[in-house]
């Protein structure tokens, strides 16, 4: 299954790990670290001749309720030219599972999205521990 991303621009994304004022459990772990998930492809694809080669970047595999999801991004001339799902569960199975939830009518009324179609993930306060296994981390790694 392939998803073509018609993005006309270069997206670059970075995750910053910060000590939080809301977290109290680990006082020792309050250092500030920056993980900049810039794809090497975006910095190496400019060549002096003007012709550029495409580079691909694999996102981390993410376990979801519907199976493993992994995306690959192709970057050419500093632009995302293609987003390919390396592993993506099929949509039918997804909708079937959603409609079997406790409140199917309401749940099906909410705007739905697959993780590959969103640029960011909102949720109750995400800690650095949770971040590393989160969908947002996969999105950041894939430079969405």
């Amino acid at each position: 299954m392939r998803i073509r991303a018609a993005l006309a621009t270069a997206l670059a994304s970075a995750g910053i790990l910060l000590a939080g004022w809301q977290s109290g459990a680990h006082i020792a772990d309050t250092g500030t670290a920056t993980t900049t998930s810039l794809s090497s492809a975006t910095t190496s694809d400019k060549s002096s001749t003007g012709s550029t080669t495409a580079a691909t970047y694999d996102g981390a595999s993410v376990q979801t309720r519907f199976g493993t999801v992994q995306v690959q991004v192709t970057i050419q001339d500093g632009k995302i030219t293609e987003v390919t799902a390396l592993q993506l569960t099929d949509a039918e199975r997804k909708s079937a599972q959603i409609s079997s939830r406790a409140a199917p009518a309401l749940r099906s009324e909410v705007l739905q999205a697959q993780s590959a179609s969103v640029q960011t993930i909102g949720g109750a306060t995400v800690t650095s521990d949770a971040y590393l296994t989160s969908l947002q981390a996969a999105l950041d790694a894939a430079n969405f």
Partner: protein
Amino acid sequence: MGTVVSLTVASDTYADTAVDELESAVDVVEGIFAHLDLTFSLYRSGSEASRLARGELTLASASETMQDLYAEASEWRLATDGAFTAERPDGTLDLSGIVKAHAAREAALSLGALGLRNWCLNAGGDVLVSGSPGPATHEPWLAGIVDPLDRRALLGAFPLQSMKALATSGSAERGDHIWAVGGAKPEFVQVSVAAADIVTADILATTIVAGGTRTLDQAVEKWNVAVLAVRPDGELLATPEFRTAT
């Protein structure tokens, strides 16, 4: 543990320039969050907030930022009939409920000052955007919302257009860090609020988790916000903005 901040910048310049833009933007945003953390963390014994909490410092002699945020928190306390409060049950001053959103608001100002128009800032699950992920297309940034009952799946999505901020509060990630009014068990495990500004979104999300259905109804009536709330059994309450157009 700590709060994770991620920044995505959409740029139509060359890749090298875009990388430079992003790196300066990250430096600025990191500086803002780090500085506010030093001031407001109650887990740093030497922070201004800790000195205030121990009574070594009075509010009158505190920094202007501290006084301003306390004043803002007090206004929200009045506006929410006491459901939002900057004081812990034991009376300790705690501005944690507002400082993260304040940091995001400050970061937005700085990103604008850097000349960046198209970006998405995610601070610990609270999202603030500007412009579009594809400036030429003017499509809105699309934020997925985590399913609190299965944190590796998405509950839904919200396009950030006129409402540029989306904040989510709940008890799923860090235990029950929000005290419900009257000590009752929270009616919602997760509440997402979209609003024009991040402070309103963040405070109302926290307040609705604390105050339950009644507070949700009041908030929707009083402020121009969109709300998606999840009950412990998975049942959803959603305002029209969160529903699929039919």
